[in-house]
C-alpha cells in the first residue's frame, strides 16, 4: 500500500479529519475540548454539534465529565494542551478514568517545546512521565502523520483509557508504505545496528538528521526505532528490533526522570540486554527561556547538532 500524502497537513488536522470519519459512523463518540481549537475541529463542531462540547477552562471537571459520559456508554475524547490534560488532572485521570478502565482518550497537543515561548507552564516535558505512572492507561506519542492517523482509529475502536500525544504543525511520514500494523507499538524506521536510537515524537526527526552526521563522522551504521507506544511497552517487538543492536541511545524532548529512556533502560536490564546505553533528554531542571522550538531544542541540547555532539562524545568515551 502506498502512503497517503499527509505531509502538507497539520498533525492536528490529520488526527481530527480521521476522527471526523469515525464520529460520522459512531454516535457514541463525544469530543470535549478545553478551550482549545484546531482548524479541522470546526468542521466536526458544525456537522456534529451534539457530539462536540467545549467545556471551557475547567480541566478537572472535564476529566470527571469524560468519566461520567464513558460510564454512560460514550466513547470520549478530551482535547487540550499537554500539561493541562496531564499534570493538572493526574488524580482525575487516575481515579475517575483509569481505575475504572474507561474508554476516555486524552488527546494532548504540545509535546516538549511545542509552545516554546510560553514558559514552563506550557511545556510538555513532564506530562508523559506523569501519565506513565498511572495503571491501566495506554500512552502513545505520535511521530508522523501515519501514527497520528492510526491513533485516531485506535482511540475510537480500542477500549480502555489512553493518553495520546499529537503534534502541532507538519511532519514528514516516517514510512513509505501503509503496511505497518500500528497495534505493534514500535517500528524500525531506519536500518542500522551498530548504534540504535530509540525515540518518538517530532524529536525523532532530529534523530534522523543526527544519524546521518554520525554515520558520516564515525562510519557506524545507525538505526532508528520509533517507539510510538510507550505503555504498554511493546516488549516482544522491541526485543526483535534490538536483536543485533550493539549500542543503544534513547532520545526524548522531555525530562529524563521517568521518561522514555528510563522505561527503555529498565526494559533492557530486565531482558538481560547489557549494551552500552545513553539517554538524551532534559536534565532535572526547569527551562525558563523562551524562543522558537528549534532554538529551545538547541539551547537544551536536543537539536540534531547537539544530539550528534552528545553521541559523539559518548562514543569517544565508550570505545
Amino acid at each position, binding site marked *: 500500500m502506498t502512503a497517503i500524502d499527509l505531509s502538507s497537513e497539520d498533525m492536528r488536522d490529520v488526527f481530527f479529519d480521521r476522527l471526523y470519519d469515525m464520529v460520522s459512523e459512531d454516535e457514541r463518540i*463525544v469530543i470535549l475540548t478545553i478551550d482549545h481549537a484546531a482548524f479541522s475541529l470546526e468542521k466536526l463542531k458544525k456537522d456534529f454539534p*451534539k457530539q462536540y*462540547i467545549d*467545556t*471551557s477552562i*475547567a480541566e*478537572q*471537571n*472535564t*476529566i*470527571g*465529565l*469524560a*468519566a*461520567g*459520559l*464513558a*460510564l*454512560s*456508554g*460514550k466513547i470520549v475524547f478530551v482535547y487540550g494542551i499537554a500539561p493541562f490534560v496531564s499534570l493538572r488532572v493526574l*488524580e*482525575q485521570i487516575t*481515579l*475517575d478514568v483509569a*481505575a*475504572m478502565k474507561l474508554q476516555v482518550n486524552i488527546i494532548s497537543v504540545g509535546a516538549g517545546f511545542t509552545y516554546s515561548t510560553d514558559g514552563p507552564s506550557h511545556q510538555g516535558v513532564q506530562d508523559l512521565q506523569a501519565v506513565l505512572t498511572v495503571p491501566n492507561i495506554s500512552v502513545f506519542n505520535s511521530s508522523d502523520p501515519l501514527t497520528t492517523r492510526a491513533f485516531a482509529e485506535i482511540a475510537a475502536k480500542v477500549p480502555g483509557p489512553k493518553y495520546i500525544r499529537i503534534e502541532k504543525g507538519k511532519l514528514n511520514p516516517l514510512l513509505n508504505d501503509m503496511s505497518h500494523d500500528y497495534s505493534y507499538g514500535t517500528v524500525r524506521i531506519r536500518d542500522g545496528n551498530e548504534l540504535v536510537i530509540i525515540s518518538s515524537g517530532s524529536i525523532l526527526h532530529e534523530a534522523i538528521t543526527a544519524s546521518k552526521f554520525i554515520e558520516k563522522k564515525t562510519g557506524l551504521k545507525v538505526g532508528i526505532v520509533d517507539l510510538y507506544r510507550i505503555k504498554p511497552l511493546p516488549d516482544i517487538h522491541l526485543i526483535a528490533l534490538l536483536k543485533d543492536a550493539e549500542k543503544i541511545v534513547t532520545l526524548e524532548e522531555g525530562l529524563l526522570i521517568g521518561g522514555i529512556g528510563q522505561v527503555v533502560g529498565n526494559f533492557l536490564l530486565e531482558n538481560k540486554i547489557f549494551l552500552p546505553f545513553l539517554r538524551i533528554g532534559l536534565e532535572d531542571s526547569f527551562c525558563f527561556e523562551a524562543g522558537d522550538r528549534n532554538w529551545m531544542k538547541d539551547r537544551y541540547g536536543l537539536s540534531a547538532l547537539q544530539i550528534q555532539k552528545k553521541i559523539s562524545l559518548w562514543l569517544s568515551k565508550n570505545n
Partner: protein
Amino acid sequence: MKLKKKSAEIRLSILDVIALAGKGHIGGTYSCIDILVVLYYTGFLKLNPNDPLWIGRDRFILSKGHAGVGLYAILADLGFITVNELNSLNQGSIFGEHPHHLVPGIEIVSGSLGHGMSIATGMALADKIDCKDRKTVVVLGDGECYEGAVWEANNFAAHNNLHNLWVIVDRNGLITNGNTEKINKLEPFSDKWRSFGWDVHNVDAHSIEELVALFSSLEKKKNDLPVVIIANSIKGKGVSFMENQASWHHGEISGENYKIARKELINILDQYGEL
C-alpha cells in the same frame, strides 16, 4: 415510622460493623444516613439489587466516600451485598473505608473529595444527550465544597440545564479540624449555589418527613435547573457523645464507648417497637 425505624437499624448496623473493624468514619456517616435511607427505601432511586448494573437504573454517587460504611450497611440490607461482606470491612476484603466500583451497587471510585460532582454531571449530560428519563443523585459533604472542582462542575451543570442532576449536601458544619465557619467559612452557602444557577432547597437532614416531602415535591418540578438540597445535619447524629464533635470524624469504636453507643441506638430503635 418505618423509615425512622430503618434509620435506627442502619445506624446500629454501622456501629457494629465499625466495632468489628475497630475504627471508622462514623461521624459523617451518621450525619447523612437519614438522607440515604430516604433515597434507598422510598423508591426514589430506581435500582435493582439483583442486577446492580441494570441499564435503566438511577445513578447514585456518594461523593463523600468516607461515609461508605453507611452505604455498605444499606446495600447489605437490600441484598446488593451479603452481611458477611459487610462484616469484612477493612479486614482483607474489597470493602474499605472509601467505596469503589468493584462493590456491587457502587458507581465510582470514591475517597478523594471533589470528584463525584463532575462524574455525576457527565452521567446527567449523557442522559440528556440520549433523552433518557432518569436521575443522577450525588451526596456531597459540606467540607467537600471547598474543592474547586465542585464549582467547576456546578457551573457546567447549570449552564447545560441538567435538570436530571440532584445534589444533596450533607451540611454538618464540621470538617476534621473543626467548624467550617471558623476555619474557612462556607456561608452564605445557599446563595453561592443559587448564584451559580441552581434550584436551591434547604431541609432538616434528620427529618424523614421533610426529606420525603421535599423529594416528592421536587420530582414534579417543572424547571430545568439542576437541584441542590442543602441538608442541615448533625455530625454523629444518634449517639449523644458523638454529636457535633469534629473528633468523631473518624474514631475507634470499642469497649465502653461501644457499649454506650449501642445502648443509645437500641433505645431509639425500641421507640418504634414492632413495625
